[in-house]
């Protein structure tokens, strides 16, 4: 259980986290979403007591993190930047951490086995790939068998198998009644992993709701139809008070009967469209209700709070040369992994 009250972080004049309130509950996976620079990592660092809030409080399991007598068993965290000295082996790194709580050696072996690091446990971390580094970070987070887990971009640098493994692990840990607080840039991954979402933009909470509710905030809603009788169906839809357009967005009235065409019908739900087709003798090849994906709902919600706007909408773009217009690359896992590697080398 994580509870933030009025939590605020200011860097100079800039409010990175702006008086936010939220609760992360046990027994479920809570996703933490937001554009780069929205305050996700800062919030996570404040939960761990690494950054001092300018104002407000954040409690973990009822206490500020630093007040716990057995911190590693309360919270395990994988933070975005690597937190491992490259000169130690994976085993030594875990041993150093385990010593602070006199955790048994058998627990080190357990988390090494759990994260699949057996074959590299005695190798120096400096030579690890990003994915192995992430696995070791997860092993460190799990070391104290904590009741709360904070994972900042845990699937960074992992292969598809590793991504699925993290998803199953998060679901499993939450199923045991633990609190799992997870941030990720991969929306499809988040949609499959999280039960609940907290969305942050420009330091403010934009949404705090279940994944289903969140997806419903997306405005896209229509029924996709494929039919060889597009003109007849379009007419019937219009008569019933709906609207049928081609996927290109042009009204479907001009569609030619005979060739199979796709239509997007809004204003009517799928059963209504199906019944219309039956009563009008129209053959349907496809009838699919379409709504916004998590990603689309997220993009709509955060459109106004992007810290770095990439490009102005076409037509309004000021005259800039191509180099500066495209200078900003959105943070893909690959881009941030390069950063982490740079940091590790430094």
């Amino acid at each position, binding site marked *: 259980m994580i509870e933030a009250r009025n939590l605020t972080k200011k860097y100079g004049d800039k409010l990175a986290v702006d008086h936010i309130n939220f609760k992360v509950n046990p027994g479920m996976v809570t996703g933490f979403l937001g554009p780069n620079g929205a305050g996700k990592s800062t919030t996570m660092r404040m939960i761990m007591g690494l950054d001092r809030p300018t104002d407000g409080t954040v409690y973990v399991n009822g206490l500020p993190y630093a007040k716990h007598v057995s911190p590693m*068993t*309360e919270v395990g965290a994988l933070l975005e930047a690597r937190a491992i000295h490259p*000169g130690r082996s994976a085993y030594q790194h875990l041993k150093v951490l385990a*010593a602070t709580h006199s955790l048994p050696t058998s627990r080190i072996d357990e988390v090494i086995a759990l994260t699949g690091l057996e074959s590299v446990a005695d190798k120096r971390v400096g030579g690890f790939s990003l994915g192995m580094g992430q696995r070791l970070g997860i092993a460190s987070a799990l070391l104290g068998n904590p009741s709360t887990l904070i994972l900042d971009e845990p699937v960074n640098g992992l292969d598809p198998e590793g991504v699925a493994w993290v998803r199953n692990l998060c679901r499993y840990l939450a*199923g045991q009644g*633990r609190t799992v607080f997870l941030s990720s840039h991969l929306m499809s991954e988040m949609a499959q992993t999280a039960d609940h979402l907290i969305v942050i933009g420009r330091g403010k909470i934009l949404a705090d709701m279940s994944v289903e509710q969140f997806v419903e905030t997306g405005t896209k809603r229509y029924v996709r139809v494929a039919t060889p009788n597009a003109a007849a169906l379009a007419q019937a839809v219009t008569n019933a008070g709906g609207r049928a357009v081609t996927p290109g967005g042009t009204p479907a009235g001009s569609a030619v009967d005979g060739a199979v065409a796709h239509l997007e019908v809004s204003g009517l739900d799928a059963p209504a469209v199906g019944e219309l087709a039956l009563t009008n003798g129209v053959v349907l090849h496809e009838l699919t209700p379409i709504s916004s994906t998590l990603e689309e709902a997220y993009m709509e919600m955060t459109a106004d709070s992007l810290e770095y706007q990439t490009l102005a909408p076409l037509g309004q773009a000021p005259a800039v040369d191509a180099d500066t217009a495209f200078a900003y690359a959105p943070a893909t896992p690959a881009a941030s992994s390069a950063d982490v590697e740079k940091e590790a080398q430094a």
Partner: protein
Amino acid sequence: MSAVMTDALDGASVNSPVAKYVSRFADHKIGFGKQLRSEWLKMWTLRSTWWMMGATVVLMAGLSLLFAGVMDLVVNEMRGMGGGGAGAADISEMSVGIVIVVLGYQLAQLTVAVFATLTITNEYSSGMIRATLSATPRRLRTLLAKLVVVTLTTIVVTLVGLTLAWAVTYPLMSSNHTLVDFSQWDQVRSLLGTVLYLVMIAWMALGIGTLMRGSAGAISTVMGLILVAPMILGMIVMFAPNIGWVGQIYRFLPSEAGQQIVMQLDGMMGPDSGAMSVEMLSPWVGFAVLAAYAVAALAAGAWSMKRRDA
């Protein structure tokens, strides 16, 4: 493993109220002794520690052996010129033996300072500090644990270095009748002072490292204080002795003040003060000045560690 996970998932519905999860290690509390053990492991699992501490011992013994050899040559030369045992007799009055045994501190202070600085700066540069402070969030205790471990290591390594320096120079010193005289308090003070001096240098370096966080900047600062500043000011004092205030700064530099406890010996002036117009501080006053620098650096580091974001 995935089968186990699936079973467990089937057993727990996400929206049903779940019993509070308690770690099976919840009774494993943090403690200062455990933190010391962790810091000790942290230190000795890095190769750089072995290199630097090995180098400290080798430099101390090596420099002593080198100077013992030079002394032996000089004494033999004097014997040849002056005739009889006059040269040897003179040297036995002059505490040459103790100076040669402790001389290595001049090099050891560099490796000890780098070692102590890196103890904290390598945590900040690698990001390890975040793992450390996640495991042990009480920051001042974490710094104190590092301080204890650095102090113990410096004491042990210095004692080993001194013992080795004494042992390897024993044959040459013995033949020149200039062995360390353990019955003379100033010579014993010089030996103890070597340990104390290096411990204070380590403290100061750890404090500066904690304050500055970056390895390069912190090491440069420490080296500037104990190596470059004495060299430059020393030259000014030597060649322009009439600029009084430079001499005042010079004798209050951490290394110049602190090393009086090692180098001020009966029957022989310290290597710096001899040729200088500046009157150096007395051994314990000088040491107190160095200790004040060390404590001030640690206090500043502790304040910064407590206040600043990790």
